[in-house]
């Protein structure tokens, strides 16, 4: 077996050094009733060639986003990732290292995390960011838990524009915590509806911009109202490229910003791994979940970086920790940071504008389709359309034309009564030819 270096002779010699007769002696503590006498009922080992053949066969059954015109978004976005990113994250020293608990021999990872935290803080307009969460949805749930700790209040209000998966994850965790979640009715342009639900028991309000329908909202007034009531404002963003064009959550008064960082550097990966961004105002740092990297000096006075404020974390505080998170998305944070370094402010702004421009072209093309109603009033690179029929049918039909038309909203939230709503996205990877082909195919397949 190619991954196992010991030879039979090695094993015999080692058993001798240990002073036992057989490997079974080393498993003597296992109750006899639970000892397997031989391998379980699964295939035996296989060579690289055979394994590659099987997995390549499975991969070939899938239709990658890049295989043709593609318009899905809804929390995961198709973007071009520079080749440099994947090259660097495959370096042994990044790929095969552990969490940087020994800072003397982990300065590579630690400096990257410090740079990542700074990039995320700048991007979101917040003071401090952590070293990553699993993804945007779990970051959202953690933010709500954190707001409860900060305010010692029990109720959280989620706007109807929050991604239904994010809302579901948050509700799942909150239910276990005994926390009260008020999720407002799903609506395309109603982030401000949270205003009416804020009261003296409210720990936080959670709004999303651009929201799941793509609607962009200035949440400044929501922040003011929340703060006036002693509640925190949590702003969610699933498409971080938008922050190259739109006012940041920090500028609008957010207390906690959570985002899905997948668009920068990570790729689609059928939903994971992704990278959750989590950023807060300075005064809340000690209530944050997750790892934090900080600057310090070594014994010779040289600048270095360490994981810090770990008294918040599970390995020190156990049941009193701010979260149970341990493993995070380190390598995805590295990918994010490399891609962001390549973009720089200028590249990010250009990329964001290009996304917006492509989406407006898409809107113009689809607005001409008979029976289509564009629902999203202000958008970045994604918007919702009401079709004259169930949105699932044309998506299936257009597959025959080689086009993946978008995400039917009902797939995200079957109970919302929005069966006719389709979410469509355009990014820098969407060509004018893709848009033309999409509009043309729709005209042929949708009956007004």
């Amino acid at each position, binding site marked *: 077996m190619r991954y196992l270096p010991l030879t039979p002779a090695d094993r015999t010699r080692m058993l001798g050094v240990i002073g036992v007769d057989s490997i079974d002696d080393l498993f003597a503590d296992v109750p006899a009733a639970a000892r397997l006498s031989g391998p379980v009922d699964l295939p035996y080992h296989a060579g690289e060639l055979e394994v590659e053949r099987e997995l390549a066969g499975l991969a070939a059954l899938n239709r990658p986003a890049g295989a043709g015109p593609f318009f899905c978004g809804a929390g995961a976005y198709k973007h071009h990732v520079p080749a440099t990113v994947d090259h660097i994250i495959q370096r042994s020293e990044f790929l095969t*290292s552990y969490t940087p608990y020994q800072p003397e021999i*982990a*300065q590579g990872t630690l*400096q990257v995390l410090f740079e990542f935290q700074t990039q995320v803080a700048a991007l979101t307009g917040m003071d401090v960011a952590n070293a990553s969460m699993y993804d945007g949805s779990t970051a959202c749930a953690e933010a709500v838990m954190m707001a409860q700790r900060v305010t010692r209040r029990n109720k959280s209000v989620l706007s109807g524009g929050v991604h239904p998966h994010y809302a579901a994850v948050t509700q799942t965790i909150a239910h276990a915590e005994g926390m009260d979640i008020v999720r407002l009715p799903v609506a395309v342009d109603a982030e401000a509806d949270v205003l009416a639900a804020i009261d003296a028991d409210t720990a936080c309000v959670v709004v999303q911009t651009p929201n799941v329908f793509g609607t962009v909202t200035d949440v400044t007034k929501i922040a003011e109202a929340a703060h006036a009531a002693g509640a925190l404002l949590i702003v969610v963003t699933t498409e971080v490229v938008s922050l190259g064009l*739109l006012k940041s959550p920090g500028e609008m008064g957010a207390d906690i910003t959570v985002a899905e960082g997948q668009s920068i550097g990570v790729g689609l990966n059928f939903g994971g791994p992704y990278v959750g961004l989590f950023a807060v105002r300075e005064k809340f740092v000690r209530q944050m979940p997750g790892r934090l990297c900080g*600057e310090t*000096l070594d014994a010779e006075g040289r600048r270095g970086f360490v994981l810090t404020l770990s008294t918040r974390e*599970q390995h020190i505080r156990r049941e009193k*920790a701010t979260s149970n998170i341990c493993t995070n998305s380190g390598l995805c944070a590295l990918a994010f940071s490399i891609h962001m370094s390549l973009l720089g402010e200028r590249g990010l702004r250009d990329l964001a504008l290009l996304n917006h421009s492509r989406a407006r072209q898409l809107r113009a093309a689809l607005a001409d389709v008979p029976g289509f109603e564009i629902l999203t009033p202000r958008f970045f690179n994604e918007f919702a359309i009401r079709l004259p029929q169930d949105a699932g049918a044309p998506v299936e039909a257009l597959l025959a034309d080689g086009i993946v038309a978008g995400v039917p909203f009902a797939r*995200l939230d079957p109970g919302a009564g929005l069966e006719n709503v389709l979410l469509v996205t355009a990014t820098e990877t969407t060509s004018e030819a893709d848009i033309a082909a999409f509009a043309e195919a729709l005209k042929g397949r949708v009956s007004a």
Partner: protein
Amino acid sequence: MSLNNVGRPTRPTPAASTAHTSLTGARGLLQDEALIFEMGGWDKTGVDLAPADLDASDLGDLVRTAPIGLPGLSEPETVRHYVRLSQKNHAIDLALYPLGSCTMKHNPRLNEKLARLPGFADLHPMSPVSTVQGALALMDRLAHWLKTMTAMPAVALSPKAGAHGELCGLLTIKAAHEAKGQSHRRIVLVPTSAHGTNPATAAFVGYDVAEIAQTEDGRVDLADLEAKLSTDVAAIMVTNPNTCGLFERDIIEIARLTHAVGAYFYCDGANFNAIVGRVRPGDLGVDAMHINLHKTFSTPHGGGGPGAGPVVLSEALAPFAPAPWVVSDSKGFRLVEDTVDEASAGFGRMVAFHGQMGMFVRAYAYMLSHGADGLRQVAEDAVLNANYVKARLSGAMSAAFPDGPCMHEALFDDHWLEGSGITTLDFAKAMIDEGFHPMTMYFPLVVHGAMLIEPTETESLQELDRFCDALLALAAARAGDVERFTGAPYLAPLKRLDETLAARKPKLRWLAEA
């Protein structure tokens, strides 16, 4: 608990350096690398994008006008920056990485290649189900392997890490109790030797944590367990093999006692590598167990993640698993994404989308490569290697549990350092100068000055001997050469870092000089 208790240095004593120093701050080829924010690239970019045809005038004052503060680098500068940084890291590809409880084993490059096939890497999670049949088939096969290796009837694939799997397991248990009208059960029992994530997870979902004592020989104290079990207990969380690297001999009895009071048995599967292919948790009476794909099934640790923590479930808990899951019929595979829709008792949702597909691909490739025979050999070699290290080092260092075999980890305490003026931390830092990553220190908390060594099965006998020779040489040097330890490391990119300073005046981002 002070930081020192878990092996975090607080403030190092300033060292007078007698070594040769450069004029630039470099150490030979090891560059003193600036932060990206110090390189002046405020108007630089390393990407060439097509021009946008339209502006953003339609968005009015929603547009960001103030500077963001993101520097850019050209491609050559980017490559050089990150390659220079990479050289300051230790990695499993460089040497044995003996972190107990972490299973730092070789990461096959085939798995990296396969995870990058466009059919997996460039697949959108909401792409129509007919366009993702291969991905769903892979999830289904991975689930089959996990269930078969563990003799458990169900698995929830979506948790994104071990601690997230614990969360999933406890939420499943909570839902099961609620369904039976047993919501009054408020207590989760956790051994004193448990990973910190266990009590943190139990508290996170609103349970009260009570500790179970440990016996002299490093196992769960059955009498104490029995005394604390009651109809107020929701679950016990036991790691097996435990964090002392020992198999819980009474595990079947532990399960029986737990079930007798109507509680569930959550097993922390972090140490599954020791028993994969030789013992199936389902045969031990386990109700739920997470499997760290980034440990046992070798997806890379990546400097702290990402991982994946699927949770296998017993018959009793299976109906309460979270969405989504994969089902198949004559039309192929599909995803059940909404528990309400399927009239299931599922407790909800752990994540957006379907879990860590990138890890699923790697883990499945790893399983196919090893097969049922190879995975059994994995456990045997992992245990053999740990016992070999224990045997070779026991003459010089004090094993915490000298009697009987260990499983995949060899645990030492610091009795052998008494009177030497050297702590576990010092010894571990001196290992760095000899070319090895320190072992896990000061964990488990139940062993004084703990040193937990997990070599894994992917180390050759030559590398094990090199490692043991280094530790034995260090052990021999402890008398009369204290500074070798107390000032260590001397040969790393940096000397010991001031963690007190970092925590007292947190500097968590780069800021322009005022």
